């Protein structure tokens, strides 16, 4: 394993310090690894998210104007603890309440839920939404449901714009949930990531293999298959994602062509060319396109596509300005 690190035990803390040093409008609460805005407006709903680290810029990189109020940073790929999340809620509580945006993983749900219960005991008004955009996972009543992946960024962006515009907690939650309901994603890995504490790749692929439907922690996906070209990858992904949305000639969408960490922008733009071309061939207009590393999986090589079905309300909030380290417009 080759990484730029000092000490396995303090990776996340040192990273958080590096973030606030680069972005002086943010501050760090070191004990709980909370990255938060310095200026908190009591008249707005606060947005808190977070989860395991290793997905940078998610989530600390989305703290700032128009997106999150705070992000709670767990260890690499491990949910932050209940006390961590609880302290974030205490830090950013406003008169209008807090929306917790949780990626749907057992660990995250358990810790964030427990913290939300504790916060309610302290009379903090908290609502939760659970992002579950990964269509690689079959959805059923008998399982924990789908994973949250890069679609989470749209939820941060759109709910953040609603909160910034002054909407109340119920309204911010409604808009966040609407975003979740209309967001679907799928990804593939060309190569595994290496979790620092483990030191070796989580899985091994042959030189001509990819993992289609991979999760952002290196969890396996739908199947291991032979590598193919960009157009074919785009087609496979779109087939899966569009089957779950209701996009037709008269509906726009926004997309994120997301890099998983080790795949350079050159390949992402090339993939975007394949994706956008095929969406247009399917009579679907792309209203807005984001290409880059938004929700990574450490040093995994690969990419994901997220498609958000838009209506006028979502467009308005998607278009609003945002100024965070990892997302500016």
């Amino acid at each position, binding site marked *: 394993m080759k990484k730029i690190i000092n000490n396995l035990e303090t990776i996340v803390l040192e990273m958080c310090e590096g973030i606030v040093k680069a972005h002086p409008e943010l501050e760090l609460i070191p004990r709980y690894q909370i990255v938060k805005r310095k200026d908190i407006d009591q008249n707005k709903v606060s947005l808190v998210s977070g989860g*395991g680290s290793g997905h940078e810029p998610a989530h600390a990189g989305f703290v700032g104007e128009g997106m999150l109020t705070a992000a709670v940073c*767990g*260890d*690499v*790929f*491990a*949910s932050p*603890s*209940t*006390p*961590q999340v609880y302290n974030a809620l205490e830090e950013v509580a406003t008169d209008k309440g807090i929306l917790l945006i949780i990626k749907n*993983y*057992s*660990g995250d749900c*358990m*810790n964030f839920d*427990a913290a939300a219960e504790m916060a309610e005991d302290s009379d903090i008004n908290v609502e939760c939404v659970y992002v579950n955009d*990964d269509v*690689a*996972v*079959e959805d059923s009543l*008998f*399982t*924990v449901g789908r*994973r949250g992946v890069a679609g989470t960024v749209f939820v941060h962006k759109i709910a953040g714009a609603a909160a910034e515009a002054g909407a109340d907690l119920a309204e911010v939650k409604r808009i966040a949930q609407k975003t979740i309901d209309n967001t679907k994603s799928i990804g593939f890995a060309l190569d595994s990531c290496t*979790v620092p*504490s*483990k030191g070796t790749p*989580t*899985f091994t692929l042959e030189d001509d293999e990819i993992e289609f439907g991979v*999760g952002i*922690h*290196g*969890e*396996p*996906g739908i199947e291991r298959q032979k590598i193919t070209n960009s157009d074919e990858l785009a087609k496979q992904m779109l087939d899966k994602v569009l089957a779950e949305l209701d996009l037709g000639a008269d509906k726009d969408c926004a997309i994120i062509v997301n890099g998983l960490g080790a795949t350079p922008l050159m390949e992402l733009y090339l993939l975007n060319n394949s994706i956008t071309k095929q969406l247009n061939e399917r009579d679907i207009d792309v209203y807005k396109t984001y290409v880059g590393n938004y929700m990574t999986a450490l040093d995994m090589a690969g990419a994901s596509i997220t498609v958000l079905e838009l209506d006028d309300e979502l467009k308005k909030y998607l278009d609003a300005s945002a100024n965070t380290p990892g997302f500016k417009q």
Partner: protein
Amino acid sequence: MAVGVLEVKETVRRLSEIIIENEVYFCDLDSVAGDGDFGASIAKGFREVLKEIDDIDTDSISSFIRGCAMIIMEHCGGASGPIWGSAFMAASRSVKGKENLEVSDIAEMFDAGVAGIQKRGGAKQGDKTLLDALIPATEALQKAGEEGKDVKEAFADATKAAQEGAEYTKTIVAAKGRASYLGDRSLNHPDAGAMAIGVIMKELTEG
């Protein structure tokens, strides 16, 4: 042999050591179908338990276990923090007022732990989680208590039950936890948490 607060403390110390010794093994188990961090997640919490163990309130068994629960909840990463934390928290409540534990008390404590985990995580037996080892172990302890076995014998029975439960997780499809994303592909691999319960019970029993 009475199990008082000092024996409980020594057991938690040993438990912590076992978990730390098996950190890499538990991570490996979690990489097959999970995200490979299970060993690191629990070792991190129990390393902290070991560090602070002599500062934890030993007024009563209950207060001692509660102190452990707080540390676990704060320092175990991932799903393991709330799972193990709520197990210890519930266990602490179940032994309130007791100065010494009989086998039946220990069984009751395990049972409370199971209920705590289920309340937090919503899993049931057969979902391919550590409950598939912990519930059989609890039942074995209950039975041993009824049959009047001593702690050592009871733990031996519980170990056997836990290990069988862990083996059984190879034959089922995960419904909770990260492994559930795999669908049928989680077959033939045991659940990391269940395997860990088996290992821990075995090592505790053997001293």
